[in-house]
């Protein structure tokens, strides 16, 4: 790969991410408001409560580093999302695992920005984001493993190609349901909006302004977009579909999955971090293990590709 090609691909990924995140940012509040959600989470607009000095005494290194790290995580994650068999930032052999790892940078960014703001409400974001990370990380991994086992590969392209005949959602409805829940948890969407709760003035939103606020919104919309895109690669067959061109199918599936996630999340009241942890360890992790067992049985019986 030449330098020019690398540059072209990087710019392509960046443009796709910004366009997608903007679309998400416009779409999401409408879906949530039509579902009657009051606790909007990261989709909330800015309503600074006090005077404009949002973070009067910040840590000069960590506070600006937060949103930059979060956006970098989303940007790195977008590299492996395929819009078609050849239309991908870079097809990595360990693509899905790479995706799980780099999305963690969003949590790191929230921690840096929250603590660095040196304001009580923002520092609370750090505690809540870490508690949420601990509660989603194991069941999320289990939700990925079902699709990975059946496709026999970690590459996003190979996983989508394995679903040319039949989407994995048909074979593994349990894994898909698990992904819906843990994906919403990873993206901080209702009902898992604890780090962006309005009781702490929307967390990092309440302590940042200007370019930092813009980057927070880009990363938070981007993380929902990427979670939905990865879900449609893992369970809805990626770009596979009749008649329409490949990228259009991928975009449609991503948006449909996003709306489904938000609409389902709007049915439940917001959960506290303690309730999230209980849900994760008592329900989601056993369900994930059961799904792995089921998928193993299906593969032994010869189902799937």
């Amino acid at each position, binding site marked *: 790969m030449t330098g020019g090609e690398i540059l072209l691909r990087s710019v392509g990924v960046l443009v796709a991410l910004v366009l997608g995140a903007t679309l998400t940012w416009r779409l999401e509040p409408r879906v949530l408001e039509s579902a009657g959600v009051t606790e909007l989470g990261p989709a909330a607009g800015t309503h600074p409560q006090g005077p404009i000095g949002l973070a009067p*005494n910040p840590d000069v290194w960590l506070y600006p580093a937060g949103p930059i790290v979060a956006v970098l995580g989303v940007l790195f994650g977008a590299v492996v999302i395929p819009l078609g068999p050849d239309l991908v930032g870079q097809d990595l*052999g360990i693509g899905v695992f790479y995706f799980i790892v780099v999305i963690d940078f969003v949590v790191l960014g929230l921690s840096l920005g929250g603590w660095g703001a040196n304001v009580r409400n923002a520092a609370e974001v750090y505690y809540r984001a870490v508690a949420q990370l601990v509660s989603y990380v194991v069941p999320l991994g289990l939700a990925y493993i079902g699709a990975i086992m059946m496709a026999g590969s970690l590459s996003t392209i190979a996983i989508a190609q394995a679903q040319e005949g039949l989407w994995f959602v048909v074979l593994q409805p349990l894994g898909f349901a698990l992904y819906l829940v843990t994906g919403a948890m990873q993206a901080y969407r209702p009902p898992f909006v604890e780090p962006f709760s309005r009781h702490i003035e929307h967390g990092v939103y309440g302590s940042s302004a200007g370019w930092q606020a813009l980057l927070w919104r880009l990363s938070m919309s981007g993380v929902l977009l990427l979670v939905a895109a990865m879900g449609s690669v893992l369970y809805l067959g990626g770009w596979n579909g009749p008649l329409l061109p490949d990228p259009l199918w991928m975009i449609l599936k991503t948006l449909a999955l996003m709306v489904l996630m938000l609409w389902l999340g709007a049915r439940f009241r917001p959960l506290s971090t303690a309730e999230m942890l209980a849900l994760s360890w008592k329900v989601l992790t056993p369900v994930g293990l059961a799904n792995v067992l089921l998928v193993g049985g299906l593969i032994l019986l010869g189902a799937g590709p």
Partner: protein
Amino acid sequence: MSLGEMAEWFAFLVLALISLAGALGMATTMSMFRSGIFLMASFIGVAGLFILLSADLLGLLQIMMYIGGMLVMILFMVLFSMDPGGAMMADMKMSLVERFFSLGLSSGKKDDGGGDMEHGGHDGGGMEHGGDGGDGGGMEHGGDGGDGGGMDMSMTTPVKGWAALLGLANGALLTGLLLLRPAWPESTEQPNPDSAEQIGNLLMGKYMMAFEGAGLLILIGIFGAVLIGRTSRYPDDRSRTAYVTVDAPPPEVEESAGDVVARDSKEGD
């Protein structure tokens, strides 16, 4: 030198700088939180070096371990340390390196008395070190009988110079070993791009006992945690109730007893 080689060198230098600066910052900064973040940066730099050596799975595993693990570890440091933000230490007499890595730590002095928005860890008013003359005052303060309300003064331990010396000697030794090594065999063979499959086969085949043993060990650890955390003879004790934060704003930060004692002793000076 081709463009690819130059990019490789550039990446190597940047990652090496991140690793070394992160390690140095971890040892010298006055803020617990920053210390953990610097350690994480150092490990992520090392992970980048792994990726540069085509061991991408190993590098990503390292990043995953250290982001999650280090954030949780910092959370515990914040829970159990007196001054996790380093605000009290920030005004003390420091060496140049320490001052650089503690740059911009909020001492709370710029704050115009808006104590209600301050986070507990950064609470500035409680102890003012070296504010009124006497640069070494902070050091002495820790010396005379621990009146800092249990404040940990280990960040300014006199052993620090020896530790730095030991670290430098260690680095020199390792570099010397590397320079004076017997010639390594060179190979033009490309590493296998599908290292994940190989590692998986090794873990589940040759090294299965070690893998399952580690799993068993973690399971026993979980049992231990459940045993310690289970409901005791006093299930109604107020300290055991789950702190549910979603329906109410967090409680106001109260001035702890330690702060009051410290302020009293300060006034008595």
